[in-house]
């Protein structure tokens, strides 16, 4: 299968990735060839196969839903590129 440049641009937009023209063309070729390889999965008749969504048969144990101790705010905010009064600061989202 061969992806078009427009399809690759659309995927990059969905993935929130700014890609150069060279990257778009490179990924167009590489994703096409990877998807060709993946196409061999269609050889298998899986009509009666349940999708595997968890590798372990048993259900894992859920913890009790009680308030615990939160991580220190200053440490968490300390990694943020921009903050204002204990909040993460971002460019305007609403006009």
């Amino acid at each position, binding site marked *: 299968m061969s992806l078009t440049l427009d399809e690759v641009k659309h995927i990059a937009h969905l993935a929130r990735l700014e890609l150069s023209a060279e990257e778009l063309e490179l990924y167009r070729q*590489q994703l096409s060839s990877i998807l060709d390889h993946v196409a061999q999965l269609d050889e298998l008749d899986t009509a009666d196969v349940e999708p595997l969504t968890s590798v372990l048969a048993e259900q894992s144990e859920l*913890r009790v839903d009680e308030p615990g101790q939160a991580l220190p705010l200053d440490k968490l905010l300390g990694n943020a590129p921009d903050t204002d009064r204990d909040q993460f600061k971002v460019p305007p989202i609403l006009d």
Partner: protein
Amino acid sequence: MGDFTNLTLIEARDALRQGDFSSRQLTQAYLDRITAIDKGIKAYLTVLSDEVLQAADEADRRLQAGEELPLLGVPLAIKDLLTIEGVRTTCASRILENFDPAYTATAVQRLLDAGAIVLGKTNMDEFAMGSSTENSAYQTTHNPWDVERVPGGTSGGSAAAVAARLAPAALGTDTGGSVRQPASFCGVTGLKPTYGRISRYGLIAFGSSLDSVGPIGHTAEDVALLFSLMAGHDPRDATSMDKTVPDMQLTETNSIKGLRVGVPKEYFIKGIQPEVESAVRAAIAELEAQGAEIVEVSLPHTQYAVPVYYIIAPAEASANLARFDGVRYGLRVESDDYIDMFKQTRGQGFGPEVKRRIMLGTYALSAGYYDAYYGQAQKVRRLIQDDFIQAFEQVDVIATPVAPTTAFRIGEHSDDPLEMYLQDIFTLPGSLAGVPGLAFPVGFDENNLPIGMQLIGPHFGEAKLFEAAHVYQQATDWHQQQPQLNISK
């Protein structure tokens, strides 16, 4: 001062207890070796010189006081994907260049609680995507057996550190082979545990249905000790299972008499390096000589593991890595428009392989393609798991090569992603099935490069893997071989 860096983890631990040397002396010996050699290996991204010596002094005080913790005063190396509070954690990515975690990964914390101290953080493929450690944004790690070659990946820094004796043991992580393949390429022993066996709290997520924490060391005994200290339920990771952790007693008296070892014909295919096949077959013969029963088994869907994995893992990665958006941590490329800020940040912060997988995963999950790709991959994943379930009705463990070849040259596969993905052909099936796999050295090829064998067990069946590898290592000395480091100083 003797060369303490030749000791195994358990030998070093015992020597510390007996007072043969101090934790400070042991730690200083590793730091000196790192200073002398690591510029040629590039295993470490961060060396915690001051912090680890301070911790060593504290451990020495506790040793003097007669404390007997399982790892008291023993230095370890940790893959830079596992968080340690206050220690820069990069995932070998530019996007996390200055990330200072607010908490410590449970797996690491349990080793610290057992008395271990941390030498530093090791190099890896960016966000654990790759098979060679060439995808690090900072440096390519070199294989200690031949510095022109890759150490494998993605835990290449951890495996190379152990092989070059820059740490007695290390932690890696394994999503599709990232502990086992570098362990094989570097001639050391490494475990990918059962899915859910070791907490992933503090493991920066890549593929959440696959990710695991795995120890790397010189012997099955060392790896088993680290495993048993880390394993067990953690309320902070809902996927960690509350299962009894075996108290591994590996001694000279272990026996594998009657152990049924399955050999799957699908793992001995055309294209496998002949020396790899002959070394693995010789190792299987050694297991037989030790009393194991060899049984041919079939895992008929093996060939589909690569395409299944390269849909499921990128799909999960595209979701997990959505969190890197320049808001809460890491790089931000400023823009007046918030969508543009996301795109610029991610476009500049991620390297080529990470972007490739995010693109692939986004495509596989996008409207109109979900069933054809992700849905079909999940169905075939079940067929792959069923293969293992059926095989383990006949046998106790399965023996396979770890990788089709020994360590390849730096740059050899870096232009063709699909070719690189095919390197994972023997480790991916077990990852997809969630079963444990233990890699350990079983010989060398004509270029004196290590060859590894993998023993795969059923869910929560790590104990038999350790026993079999331990019996093998009692009878052979491949795991004791050391690379002749030829590094210009």
